[in-house]
């Protein structure tokens, strides 16, 4: 699949943003006064910024509001609802923290639940697709949750919890690469099943249907992005978890260590998300003899 910058930014930033908003809502950190407005504002900026980046991916962004209509069948529509609901429900909690109103934490808890539901919907947009076997796996939602909670835990300066989540994320990511490599074969889709010609022999592509590219070959048979896959896998596994955990362990706790660990984590997350798309092979490639 083509790694579109807008979707990579969207999923990384809004994932991190909603994760952090959930942490603020649950009261994992309870900043007060100006700091509260600053940190809640950061969470909102990331979540909303990511959502806006995603609209750049649309062919007709002016009609984006129509995406709220199909929540009964579409994960993308559910994501839109969950995102708006969590941002609205968390707003009073942000106000309460900033102005010291002391409103019940339950509001934040509800908002955090909705923020996590948003992440789940985002992950399900990909995980529901049988046509992309690497995504059609429980690891997809697990990784989306892993990235969001790890980024949030680092920024929330949770110490040992952040370190543990970092290590867990790296493990999960490594497992994801390992299991993901087997998913296409496990799906059972082959050129023989795609054409049904397996019943008379072994098919191979003789001639392509068109000499130039088309939407399918550009969007779903994108092989250029896999060129540096091995290096990017190493950057993703070490950057998103192992090195940030080391930074948090060795440097004295405080903002410099937090910012450094978070920056490294986000670099790793971007590398991982690039690969999430670039290494995802769509079954339509079978018709072209390519993956």
């Amino acid at each position, binding site marked *: 699949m083509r790694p579109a910058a807008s979707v990579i930014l969207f999923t990384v930033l809004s994932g991190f943003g909603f994760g952090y908003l959930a942490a603020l809502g649950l009261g994992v950190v309870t900043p007060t006064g100006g700091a509260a407005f600053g940190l809640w504002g950061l969470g909102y900026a990331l979540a909303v910024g990511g959502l806006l980046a995603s609209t750049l991916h649309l062919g007709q962004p002016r009609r984006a509001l129509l995406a709220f209509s199909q929540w009964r069948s579409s994960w993308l529509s559910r994501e839109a609802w969950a995102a708006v609901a969590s941002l609205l429900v968390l707003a009073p909690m942000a106000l309460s923290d900033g102005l010291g109103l002391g409103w019940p934490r339950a509001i934040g808890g509800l908002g955090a639940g909705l923020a996590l539901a948003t992440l789940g919907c985002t992950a399900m947009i990909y995980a529901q697709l049988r046509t992309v076997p690497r995504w059609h796996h429980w690891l997809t939602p697990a990784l989306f949750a892993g990235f969001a909670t790890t980024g949030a835990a680092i920024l929330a300066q949770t110490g040992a919890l952040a370190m543990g989540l970092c290590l867990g994320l790296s493990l999960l990511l490594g497992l994801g690469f390992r299991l993901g490599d087997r998913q296409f074969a496990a799906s059972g889709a082959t050129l023989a099943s795609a054409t049904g010609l397996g019943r008379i022999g072994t098919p191979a592509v003789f001639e392509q249907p*068109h000499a130039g590219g*088309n939407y399918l070959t550009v969007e779903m048979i994108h092989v250029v992005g896999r060129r540096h896959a091995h290096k990017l896998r190493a950057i993703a596994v070490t950057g998103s978890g192992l090195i940030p955990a080391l930074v948090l362990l060795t440097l004295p706790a405080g903002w410099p260590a937090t910012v450094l660990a978070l920056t490294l984590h986000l670099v790793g997350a971007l590398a991982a998300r690039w690969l999430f798309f670039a290494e995802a092979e769509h079954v339509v490639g079978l018709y072209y003899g390519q993956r």
Partner: protein
Amino acid sequence: MNALPDHCEQRLGLVIDLDTCVGCQACVTACKGWNDQGTTGPLDDVNPYGTAPSGVFFNRVHSYQVQPADGVAEIVNFPRSCLHCADAPCVTVCPTGASYKRSADGIVLVNEAACIGCGLCAWACPYGAREMNPVRGVMQKCTLCVDRIYNESLPEADREPACGRTCPTGARHFGDLADPQSPVSRLVADRGGYDLMPEMATLPTNQYLPPRRKGPPPRTSLLAPLLDLQASGLAGWLDRLLGKI
């Protein structure tokens, strides 16, 4: 709400005969020609006369070489277009309801006025049936020529999809696959028609008829009579002489 209909009164679709398709691409051209100017058009192209042309087509004809376990390999031409699936994943993933399946005849369509061009339906389709219009930013797909098949201003013979109407070998049959007595359903039953990529659980309406089994290959090479040359005259004398040395 545009969830999938529980039941379709008809299941209109195509039965594609891989035994008779000669790969002439006439269906590709007829499809583009009709739909570019029909109610679903235009099917925009980018750089059509340049070095890297690309554009929207609803129908593409692939070509495969199939090697049987015994005998010589054969070429199979393979038209690929929307299969108007009963369990169409392109419909359920759509966030706006632009992608829908009609309960009356089972045709899967895109309401372009409601399409935001997110591309998720094309991702959900195993068969590559959907292509994004590069100019208008909306998704397009085969309509089973819905503007022909019910069009009473056309002569009755023309009320079938443009691809089938134009096919010079009669490899594309149009009809109702929900009716077991329809000519297309009987073709499927007689010839062992099948679904593409059944593991994707899309329950396609369109069916493909496999190439018929070819007879055993001839024992000797087809070129054998030509190879059995008898030299005469000087060449014959030389041939006999050199054969003895």
